[in-house]
């Protein structure tokens, strides 16, 4: 976990350097911790099979509800 966070701190430092944006060490440390949580969350969801047939989605954005 901590080595992941360390790697992500390096990722943030590199990206910030390319963009020319200055962050404090604390901001980078906190940002890496948040980034780790989000990436883990996206990984987890990506591995979860979807249980809902997406047919209802076809009508979701219609102005009127589908006929019941």
């Amino acid at each position, binding site marked *: 976990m901590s080595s992941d966070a360390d790697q*992500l701190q390096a*990722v*943030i430092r590199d*990206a*910030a350097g390319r*963009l*020319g*944006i*200055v*962050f404090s060490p*604390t*901001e*980078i440390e*906190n*940002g*890496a911790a*948040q*980034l780790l*949580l*989000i*990436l883990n*969350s*996206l990984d*987890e*969801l*990506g591995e*979860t099979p*979807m*249980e*809902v*047939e*997406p047919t*209802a*989605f076809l*009508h*979701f*954005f*219609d*102005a*009127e*509800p*589908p006929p019941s």
Partner: protein
Amino acid sequence: MTHEIVGLDATALVERVKARTVSPIAAIEAYLERIAARNPTLNAVVTVTAAQAMDRARDLERRLAGGQNVGPLAGVPVVLKDIIYTKGIRTTMGSRVFSDFVPSHDAAVVERLQRADAIVVGKAHTHEFAYGPTSANAFLGPCRNPWDIDRIPGGSSGGSAASVAAGLSLVGLGTDTGGSVRVPAALCGVVGLKPTYGRISRFGIFPCSWALDHVGIVTKSVRDAALVLSTLAGRDSRDLTTSRSSGYAHYRADPGQLRVGVLLEHISEPMDEDVRSAFQAAMAETSGVVAQVLDVSIPTNAYARSVSTAITALDSLLVHEQLLRDRGPEYGQDVHGRFPLAVGLTARDYVRAQQARTRIIVETSDVFTRVDVIASPTVPIPAPLIGTDEIVLNGQTRSVPAVLSILSRLGNLTGAPTITVPYGRSSIGLPIGLQLMARPGQESALLALAEKVGASWTQLPH
């Protein structure tokens, strides 16, 4: 007379202005007096537009005296979140970076309000760049909750909600990217409506997230929210996300025909016991009003916070990249500190977040084949004390900003219309909100049910 005027909602005020039993001049004077008396404590209005407001009130009075037709919001005092551009009036975005910025044009919503004869009385406090849920702000100072000035009003549209709750205005416009209208409306005990994505033009409003930003409406009553929505909704060629559909007709739905789903993932979140009790009472009342109340589940809602945070972070970086390079040290610490996450995310992560968002929408749309409205509390806690970073809920320590918006992000990710209405008070008298969400385009169902079960705001907090 002042007390009588401030006790009306917008719908009642318009009726009296049109009937010429209340002068728009007297109405605006009453609200400016309230602002002068209460705002030094609350810090809800950051720029008072008294001279412009009185000019408009006098013009409206002249037209009424001349027998001319006036607009549907005639004489209604409005505050605008200070990220909404107002021609010739300072618009700070709640940031030192824009401390002296004066727009050369009005936002689309300002144009529509003025055509409707609403009267802008001030610009409202915001979390810096609308990027946070507390309304803590190093540049403007904190905005305070009218029910307890030691507590936050919520955010980011904290000034809009606090203004309406305290009787400084009848309408507050705000923006809602992850709950920024509904959270403060709930914590301040007023109505907060986030319409369907694309319902109201965002032209002339400083963006937070292109994908998730919505204009929202804060009012005293549900009927006022419907009235304001009807004046703001519609296509605007300057905001290509706006809908061509005008398919909104409030109160068309019969609450007795509606099926209401209680969202299990929301009510299983750690929650203040007063909020839980109020929600249970709300559902008990609702079950006597609607056709059916049943439990529903959206399992991927567990990922809503991560998905919403990732999308908002990268959308915001696109907006702020140059400003961070040029004027980064002028940002407040908490907002500046949000951007390291953004620069660490990649295009691949953004696509994955959007794919995840689609899964959440698919599951939500499936639920809406079984119910017409999804219900939950709006916020798991009543307003916390200013400066509180963490809170213990059901034995778990949680970050206050994360808790504030945990129940509101689904509405932004799906684009579905969502409203909060006051429902109950905590044991120490703080407001609690009930959140209702319908399918995109179905504001009518929301408004009809909210009108039926939501508590009307009947008194000023002080």
